[in-house]
């Protein structure tokens, strides 16, 4: 029975094995053990959403997950999602509309928006502005006032639907 735990998991497609303090949350693991600084902690009590990352394909609050509990799991961060190109259109829209100002909430905001878009794509629907606001309601942004973020997500949702409707996979 130890205060340190050996874990072996996949992070952004790479297999990593580490020994971590049991108390270390996923965000600190990513930042301190793996040097992946794109995931941010804003409150460390699960409210602000800055720490949103993906575990086993679903968004979670990284500060509310113990790294120790992730043995065998898959984690994806903003770096992984950027490198894969999966959210390129969202990122482009954020840049074009200045939906990213200081950038601190942005990684969490993008991964949260990406999940909404994926779910809507699976259902063949385009989320309304209210639905976008509702889904992003757990991600605090102090800079933008949210309007530009909603614009960006809405634009991408429409564009993805349009392009899929045209027969693209």
């Amino acid at each position: 029975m130890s205060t340190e735990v050996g874990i072996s998991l996949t992070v952004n497609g790479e297999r990593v094995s580490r020994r971590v303090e049991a108390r270390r949350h996923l965000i600190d693991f990513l930042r301190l053990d793996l040097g992946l600084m794109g995931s941010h902690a804003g409150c460390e009590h699960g409210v602000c959403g800055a720490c949103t990352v993906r575990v086993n394909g679903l968004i979670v609050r990284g500060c509310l997950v113990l790294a120790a509990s992730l043995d065998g799991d898959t984690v994806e961060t903003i770096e992984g999602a950027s490198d894969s190109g999966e959210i390129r259109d969202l990122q482009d829209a954020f840049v074009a509309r200045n939906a990213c100002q200081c950038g601190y909430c942005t990684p969490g905001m993008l991964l949260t928006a990406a999940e909404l878009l994926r779910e809507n794509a699976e259902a063949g629907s385009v989320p309304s502005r209210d639905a976008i606001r509702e889904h992003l309601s757990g991600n605090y942004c102090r800079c933008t006032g949210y309007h530009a973020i909603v614009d960006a997500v809405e634009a991408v949702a429409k564009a993805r639907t349009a392009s899929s409707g045209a027969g693209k996979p």
Partner: protein
Amino acid sequence: MKAGSFRYERAYTLAEVFRLRREVDGDAQFLAGGQSLLASLAFRLSEPNLIIDISRIPELKGISVLPDAYLRVGALTTHRELAAHPDVRRHAPLLAEAVPLIAHAAIRNRGTIGGSLAFADAAAELPACCVALGARIIAAGPGGERTIPAASFFTGLFATAMAEDELIRAVEFPCAAPGDRGTIVELTRRSGDYAMAGLAVWAQHAASGAQTPRLVYFGVGTGPVAAAEAARALGPAPWTAQKVKAAQALLDRDLDPPADQHGGPEMKRHLARVLLARAVGKLGAEPGARAA
């Protein structure tokens, strides 16, 4: 806000859980979804010797329909899974209606029904839904299992009827019968916040006709509060305006709300009255086939 140091062990069976717990003389906490526990550790409100990770125990997972027409929901069912499962939508639709009100997507992806009930936050939705639905909680301990009715499960602020060495194995809900219906309404400052006041209503429809509904408030006491007198005054559907008024008046007997940052006790009483009218409005005054 780094947690204090603790040991961590992952259990794969219930027997392992109880053995590990014994080894530290009970100075342990269970980790399921972690959505409440991790915050508590970060605030150093909890400083256990050992965290026992129960999130991989197969006996705590799964959703199935039991032969005695109960829907059995494993304690480790995440909120996301709960809302998406077709059996839940069919047999306990009130739960599916409640889940979107819980926090936010990232929390719902990992938070569990077992965790929510064990944590017993007075402003949480699922405990009130369990009481409204007449659920039974299956608690597992070193000595075996027992069934605790939801109505007696929540005993006070963050307190349940479970012993310290017990954990929730599953929650079982009577399958909704044709004509059974209900709804959940809540008032929050912001989407996903803990409710200033909330109400879960479930009205069964027996062969003899509509039954008196269960009215279970949350956010207005130390746990879910069944407003029995108000429910009696409301009676079975149809719910006329006079019946609603009579029920609202009797809420003062059922509720003894505390003050909190949103307002004083009078405010909670007022909101409780408003919620009653709104829940009835949502359901419609007449009985109808809403469940199945």
